[in-house]
């Protein structure tokens, strides 16, 4: 194991997103704050409570999750894809780094950015409505697992993508729709049949609800089930990513 290499790659990735913090950290904070303004301050008073809590509080976990999923996915996918396009992936490929070091470093950096963004979004929510965290340990563990899952997914997409269009397609056509349909703005119980059942096929529903349990002690699904779904997702994406990186697919000719 090349520990120095792993630490350097991790530090490099953190340094990279810190250098463009306006884009990587501040930007999601602004967009999420706009959601709070619209759904909380402007429309909040006209919306009834959901699951016994004010609507503005109800949407916070989903918005935190949306920001975290995007941050972790974009951190790995954009970094690796840009390195592929400008040729600097060579710096990593010629180094004595195995698939383990490669994946752990990228996942850890993405998780750090994701946690940072998630924490900032939550702080904004706190400022708006003074809410707390119902289950801190669960929230932290759950956040880390979801971040790592989408960071691994980002690595896979970056390796597969051959043009920027491919890279943009995933957040635009997969992540954002699935997140919006994953109960960020509504409870599954509010959906008519069969959409309430169909919604349960969406893995992001379990992530949004797991976060909602962690922050608000409310959820459409049991916290154990949410944790189980995320565990399976994490294990699957990391194993597939490990196989792909170790095989050198689209990285080594």
């Amino acid at each position: 194991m090349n520990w120095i290499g792993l630490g350097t790659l991790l530090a490099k990735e953190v340094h990279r997103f810190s250098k463009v913090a306006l884009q990587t950290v501040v930007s999601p904070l602004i967009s999420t704050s706009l959601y709070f303004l619209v759904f909380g301050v402007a429309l909040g008073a006209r919306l009834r409570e959901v699951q016994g809590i004010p609507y503005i509080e109800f949407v916070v976990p989903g918005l935190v999750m949306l920001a975290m999923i995007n941050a972790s996915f974009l951190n790995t996918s954009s970094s690796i894809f840009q390195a592929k396009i400008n040729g600097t992936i060579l710096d990593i490929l010629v180094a004595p780094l195995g698939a383990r070091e490669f994946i752990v470093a990228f996942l850890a950096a993405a998780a750090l950015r994701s946690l940072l963004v998630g924490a900032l979004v939550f702080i904004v929510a706190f400022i708006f409505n003074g809410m707390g965290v119902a289950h801190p340990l669960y929230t932290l563990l759950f956040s880390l697992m979801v971040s790592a899952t989408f960071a691994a997914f980002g690595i896979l997409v970056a390796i597969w993508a051959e043009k920027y269009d491919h890279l943009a397609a995933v957040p635009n056509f997969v992540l954002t729709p699935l997140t919006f349909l994953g109960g960020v703005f509504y409870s599954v119980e509010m959906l008519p049949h069969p959409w309430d059942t169909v919604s349960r096929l969406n893995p992001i529903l379990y992530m949004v609800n797991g976060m909602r349990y962690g922050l608000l002690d409310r959820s459409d699904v049991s916290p154990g089930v949410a944790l189980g779904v995320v565990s399976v997702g994490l294990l699957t994406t990391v194993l597939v990513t490990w196989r792909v990186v170790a095989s050198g697919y689209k990285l080594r000719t």
Partner: protein
Amino acid sequence: MKAGAAPLLIERLSKRFGDIEAVADVDLRIRQGEVFALLGPNGAGKTTIINCVAGLSRPTSGSIQVFGHDTVRDFRVTRRLLGLVPQEIVFDPFFTPRESLRIQMGLMGVKPDLGRVDELLRMFALWSRRDSATRSLSGGMKRRLLVAKALVHRPRLLFLDEPTAGVDVELRKDLWEVVRRLAAEGTTVILTTHYIEEAEAMADRVGIINHGRLVLVEERDSLLSRNRRGQVRAVLPVALSAPPAHLPPGTRLESENVIVAPWATARDIEEILRVVRQLGEPEEISIQQTRLEDIYVDLLKAAPDSLGRHREGESE
């Protein structure tokens, strides 16, 4: 590093890209401390061989050892021993030259050593731009940064893939000087180039590759002396209507008072000069000798099959 092991040992290396055979059954042993030039036209397979050694390409068959370690099984060891200067200028716009060197050092598994980083920045005349955005550097500076990055972890085997392609004369001479210094310090250097003068000036041994096959590996000096031939050109004080007798076959008149006679041995040269002087003291004499370029062009003109495949030791 295994004691006494060759810096690089390639056995029966083949690499296919679909139907294209980029490298075909190549054997090569590189000696400790030598500068080896791999010559060949574009697409001959030079970069593919380097990529296979550095782990950027996966061989279809064959084995590669770096200082006795297998490049697939012991990749962590072999990559630590290698340095690679790529053909293309690549740079990460996020980082300054100093940051880039520090990062590369860490990726290679070496503890942070800012002294080494600063030493390289000075050696490659990048010191004044050490904290500038890399994208703002000139092409020559970016090329020098690439060489510095390849050296930051003190590799024992350095690959320079077309290091002077598109660089100005001054930088080319600077890079040659760096290579000489590294070789003197014991680093083994393999360079690919299609500038023959580069190989002639730098290399201890030369390998010529064409259509993925290594067609020749030989000491530069022995290659030159084995193929030593040339021509004597003499400007005479008198006009001639035909070349004098007793000169080697192929002698011709360039003009009525200029003789051009081919030579193959020192005795030929003496004989040509003796005959020419009998016609009067020449106003000008020049003796031209075959250059590596001539040998290279001749070899590539011949079909690889007629040359046969080079095997370790055949020509040594």
